[in-house]
């Protein structure tokens, strides 16, 4: 699988490349900012672009904007945005842009090679990936008024969080050491409790769940 990395800090760019190579990805190119990134994408046609959210010139949300541009110009290319901050708003912005193939992870997440590999693969397959810390903040935020999350059991909340992270029923089942059938039942209950429409599409499910969490 071909990957392109964009980060203005050399130490992270090179480190990330090493890691991805160790994880079995083909690192097709490295870029220091968005302007360098676009021609590289055009030239290498990677499956996934891993991009730092803060890059020159303003060091604010260049990575987010680059993700939008890439999804628009090369719709088949997935984008994983890396950040040092837990920003649900940014994550939601990224998810709502298009039909999947995007991810928002904290930078420290990359040290777990298995998680990084699985995340990039899910993105390449058109799924969505959301950092557990972001989901944690979304689920755990104080809520006003009737809290529909209160209707969920502890187990269901756990499943909800994993759904929000962009995992499939199968992945959730594996993680929780239960059968996929059990998870399917949980998911049905959760969607009903939150009045969310069932969706076969992973990305739609993530978007619906995250939007729900963010709006409450």
């Amino acid at each position, binding site marked *: 699988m071909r990957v392109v990395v964009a980060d203005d800090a050399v*130490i*992270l760019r090179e*480190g990330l490349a090493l890691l991805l190579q160790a994880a079995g990805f083909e690192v097709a190119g490295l870029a220091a900012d968005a302007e360098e990134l676009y021609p590289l994408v055009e030239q290498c046609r990677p499956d996934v672009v891993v991009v730092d959210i803060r890059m020159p010139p303003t060091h604010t949300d260049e990575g987010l904007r680059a993700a939008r541009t890439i999804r628009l110009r090369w719709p088949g290319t997935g984008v994983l945005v890396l950040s040092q901050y837990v920003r649900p708003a940014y994550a939601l912005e990224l998810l709502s842009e298009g039909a999947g193939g995007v991810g928002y992870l904290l930078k420290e997440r*990359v040290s*777990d*090679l298995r998680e990084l590999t699985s995340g990039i693969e899910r993105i390449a397959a058109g799924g969505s990936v959301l950092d557990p810390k972001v989901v944690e903040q979304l689920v755990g935020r104080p809520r006003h008024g009737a809290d529909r999350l209160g209707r969920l059991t502890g187990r269901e909340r756990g499943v909800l969080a994993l759904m929000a992270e962009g995992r499939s029923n199968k992945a959730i089942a594996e993680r929780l050491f239960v059968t996929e059938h059990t998870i399917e039942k949980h998911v049905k209950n959760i969607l009903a409790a939150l009045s969310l429409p069932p969706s076969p599409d992973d990305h739609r499910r993530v978007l619906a769940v995250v939007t729900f969490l963010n709006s409450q």
Partner: protein
Amino acid sequence: MGAAGDHDGRVRAKLALLGAAGLASGAGAAWLAANRSFVPYQTATVPFCLLVGWSFIGCGLIAWRQQPRNRLGPVMIFMGFAWFATFLTDARAPLLFTGGTAVQSLYLAGLAYLVLSFPSGRLSGRLERGLFWSAIAVTTVVQFAAMLVADSGPVLCSGCPANLLEVGRNDGLAGWLLQAERIAGAVLAVAALVLLVSRWQRASAAQRRAVAPVLWAGWATLIALAVSVANDIAAQPFGQIPKRVLFAAVATLPVAVVAVLLQRRLARGAVAGLVVELGGEATADLREALARALGDPSVELAYWFGGGQRYVDGDGRPVQLPGLAANRATTMVESGGRPVAALIHDPALRENPELVNSVCAAAGLRLENERLQAELRARLAELQDSRARMAASAEAERRRIERDLHDGTQQRLVSISMSLGLLESKLPADPEAAAPIARTARHALGAALDELRELSQGILPGILAERGLPAALEELCGRAALPARLEVAIDRRLPAQVETAAYFLVSEALTNAAKHAQASQARVAARCADGLLTVKVADDGVGGAAPGSGSGLRGMADRVEALGGKFILCSPDGQGTAVRAELPCA
């Protein structure tokens, strides 16, 4: 009081004596005019004689009484007597006739002085002085020279008494001299007229208003004089009419002077109105009231703000006083040697300092009150500015710390976590490759720790809290970028915020010395005595430091002043920089 009374009495006696002399001279001149027996040189009839002479003397007396320091009064009195003296040319006694003839034009020189110097009574420019002394020369020297060679009969007048000054008869020369005197007089009159016109054009509206009556009368007189002299030169084609017109015009002059004086009396009456107005309601607008009293709607007020060593307006905003060359005048108001306010007004009011002074005196208490309020507002504005600056600098500081954390420490930690991830993946299959990865991670961890230490030191050095200011300063000087000698005389712990402010002041000053001032060494002194901590940092650099030049001096001053302290910067070009802060530390 007694001395003043005596003085007043003497002035009164002097004026009374002059008045009596004026009445007597008038009577004498009128008698001479009424009893002419030969073709007169002075052609004014009795009414003109008395009208012109007495109005000059009377108005001169009033002017002198009103403004003892102004020369206009004496000049007008002199003109009155000089006018009566011209009637001596009607006398039959040769001595009187000769004297009268010698001084017969002198009053015209007085006229020139009056017109040229009004209203100050001084000839302000070289041109004015030149014109006046030319007039004196023409009316005395040329006249006298002509009389040395003029015979009464054919040259001066037919049938008049003998010219006692005649030393040798030369009709041609005498006629030529007298004609030259007339032509010079006409030229001088025209020159003065041009001068007055140009002065009028340059004058402000208020100046014009102040002197208008005299200017009009002066113009009329000068025009009439020019016409009359021209008439004489051309052998009097219009007979005596131009002379009579001239006399009438001259007679209007003192009346105009009196009119201006009366106007000023009225203006001074406004002072009384001002007192009543300001006493009545405290809310009356002071500027409006002063503008009304001074008759100058353009009056502006600036109050002294001692704290900022500058003038401010009523809202506390800085005011730039007009310079000497500006077309505005400034009157300073002081109280007990301390500046209170500055009155910025039309330059025309310079001619009437008594009015301005009495208005200022009348408004004194209100001005002081307004000054206090303006000072309060100015201080408030300064405080708000400094608070905004401090908030902004705190904000910038937070941004800097966030940036340092994000770009430095966090990044290194992420790279360490990456190395560890890599290590984890390599260990089982390729232990050989693990060692360099572990080494990289260790180095990165060391660098991250260094950065964190520096950052936390920058936020608040631990030693300051643990050991106090002397130890913290010692450490600071020890690791400064240039040699710094430290003298400390502090025997106790000071309030935390004072210690912190002093510490960062020294830190910032040392950084400036090394970074901006190109200094080779610095001296740091801190001493605490009588509840005051004095901190001083001096370097031998290039000097010329100013707040707002990016050196953090403004921020230093703000922090010191926020603690009720004083911040002094001394940084002459090429002579090093010294900052000094005095902080209350009771």
